[in-house]
């Protein structure tokens, strides 16, 4: 279970005359239960990525609270990271290492080793359909191939909680389908999944719960049907646009 209560975060950008204060998140709250996929929906700049970074302990919130399982992200960051798998916006791989070596590095950092680690890598490669890439250096991998290795790297320790920041961005149909199958499998295994996305069909097909975020605030939290009913719209996309953009497309 991931709980987020009133998170806020302000950044200072530039120096001197260029200095500007940006309030990226100004009160995001939601909860993501185990055994479910929770979607974080919002326009660009809504604060989704910053929220996920605060939950993953990389960014310290100015106010509010977030817990992953029983652990607080500010006071127990190591414990949170130990039980969290994150596929962030940055998915850089080590191009001189093979797919297996990339995943093994993260597994070893999390205390795994030997046959259990290699077995887990083989299992993930099979589930994500990239066994043929495992022993190849990742230099020259396509976006989809990189994403699969990065996702396997994030899941190597079989975390109970998984955060995914726009995971299907840039993926072809086949890779996106493989990813969706993986997410459903994780959900069935009772994992708690939170992912941000722009693809409404994907959210509708995968997610039990939807959290709409705009201007750094939570505008709605509930099921897809509840969102449609609240806005009186027939499709998730129309309901989202109505809520996030006050019904005016392109003007949040």
């Amino acid at each position, binding site marked *: 279970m991931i709980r987020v209560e009133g998170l806020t975060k302000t950044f200072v950008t530039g120096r001197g005359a260029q200095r500007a204060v940006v309030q990226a998140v100004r009160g995001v709250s939601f909860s993501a239960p185990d055994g479910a996929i929770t979607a974080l929906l919002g326009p660009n700049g809504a604060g989704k990525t910053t929220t996920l970074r605060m939950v993953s302990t990389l960014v310290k919130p100015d106010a509010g609270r977030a817990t992953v399982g029983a652990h607080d992200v500010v006071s127990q960051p190591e414990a949170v990271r130990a039980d969290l798998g994150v596929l962030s916006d940055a998915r850089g791989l080590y191009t001189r*290492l093979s797919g297996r070596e990339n995943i093994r590095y993260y597994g070893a950092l999390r205390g795994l080793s030997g046959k259990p680690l290699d077995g887990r890598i083989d299992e993930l490669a099979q589930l994500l359909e990239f066994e043929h890439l495992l022993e190849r250096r990742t230099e020259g991998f396509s976006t989809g191939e990189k994403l699969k290795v990065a996702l396997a790297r994030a899941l190597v320790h079989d975390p109970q909680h998984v955060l995914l920041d726009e995971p299907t961005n840039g993926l072809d149909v086949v890779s996106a389908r493989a990813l969706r199958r993986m997410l459903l499998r994780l959900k069935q295994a009772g994992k708690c999944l939170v992912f941000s996305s722009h693809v409404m069909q994907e959210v509708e097909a995968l997610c039990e719960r939807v959290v709409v975020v705009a201007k750094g605030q939570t505008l709605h939290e509930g099921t897809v049907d509840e969102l449609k009913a609240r806005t009186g719209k027939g499709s998730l996309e129309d309901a989202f646009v109505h809520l996030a953009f006050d019904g005016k497309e392109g003007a949040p």
Partner: protein
Amino acid sequence: MRQLVTVLHKELLDGVRDRRVWLVVLVTALVSGPLTLLLVSKFLADLKSKAEAREVLVENAQAAPRLVNFLERQGRVVEPPPADVRALIEAGRFDDAVLVVPEGFEADLFRGRLVELSILHDTNRAKSTTAAVTLERLVGGFGQELTLQRLLVRSIDPALIRTVRPTLVALGSSRGGATRLLFLVPLVALVSAVIGALAIAIDVTAGERERGSLEPLLMNPVSPWSLVLGKWLAVCTASLVTLVGTVTSFAVAGQVIRDEGLSAAFQFGVAEAGYTLAVLGPFCLFVSSVLMLAALFARGHKEAQATTSYIVSLVSIAPSLSMFLSLQDASWQLLVPALGQNMVLARVFRGSPVTVLDVLTPALVCVGLTFVTLVAKTKLVGRESIVFAKG
């Protein structure tokens, strides 16, 4: 500890597979020593051959038959200079010197007047300067011979004009001239330690962020100390390997290059190599740490290269600073990395006494500063301004 070993293993594997790291380490370590010695050897040989050259260039030689006769008796062959010799010298394209004989030279000599002889040369070219000094010495000899003849004609004892006679007495260290060129070793070895560490120091810091792997890496439950120490040890390994290679290549090249002048001025054996490694080893630890700290603030490879180039420059000019500012053995240098190591090695090589404190002080300074920079990195590595700085 296990995490530290994991990080170190990954960074070494990544570094070993990075062709840039290998090329820099190999080229710096294996080529810099022999190449420097070969160039110095050739330079010394050229100077020697210029000083011993039989040909001397004399402009308007027909106006000075007695001078030509003197030069030929010294075993020299008098040749005319090229017609455009002044233009060549001014253009910096002439490696010799020219003696210019004025019109009426013989008549002026006959009348006992002081005759001015110009020696044209290029002060920017060592060979030209050497040839000018040779010509000056020959003309001086000719003048002495004339003076002697004039005194004898007047029945005056030539000993009367000899009032003082300077004699050079060498009181240098016991090793004398055998170490004149050893100053090259710290000069090259200090820079090689930095160059060897540079590529990998940038890759594990600015490179990590540029390729987008720092953010996911920090999402692992890994302690900042394991992360920083693992990466630093990998950088140190590259620096130390380059240093050992450079020192070894100097030692081997010193044995292999069979040049009389070089052998006389460059006696670098196992003992000297051992001293060099012992003194410069702690410097490798320090410079690896400083390079990583500097690159940590850079937003990418290019910016990191620009930032770290200041460190490379500072280290490369340190031995020259000591030489040109005549710092000699000022003990405050022991507290400054690079200067301290250079001073201790200079003393060791010339056979001056070196105390344990002289060796330990720069080493402890390096270890202390390394610790401070490592602590700073552990505090900085997870900072939002470092992790999310935009390139």
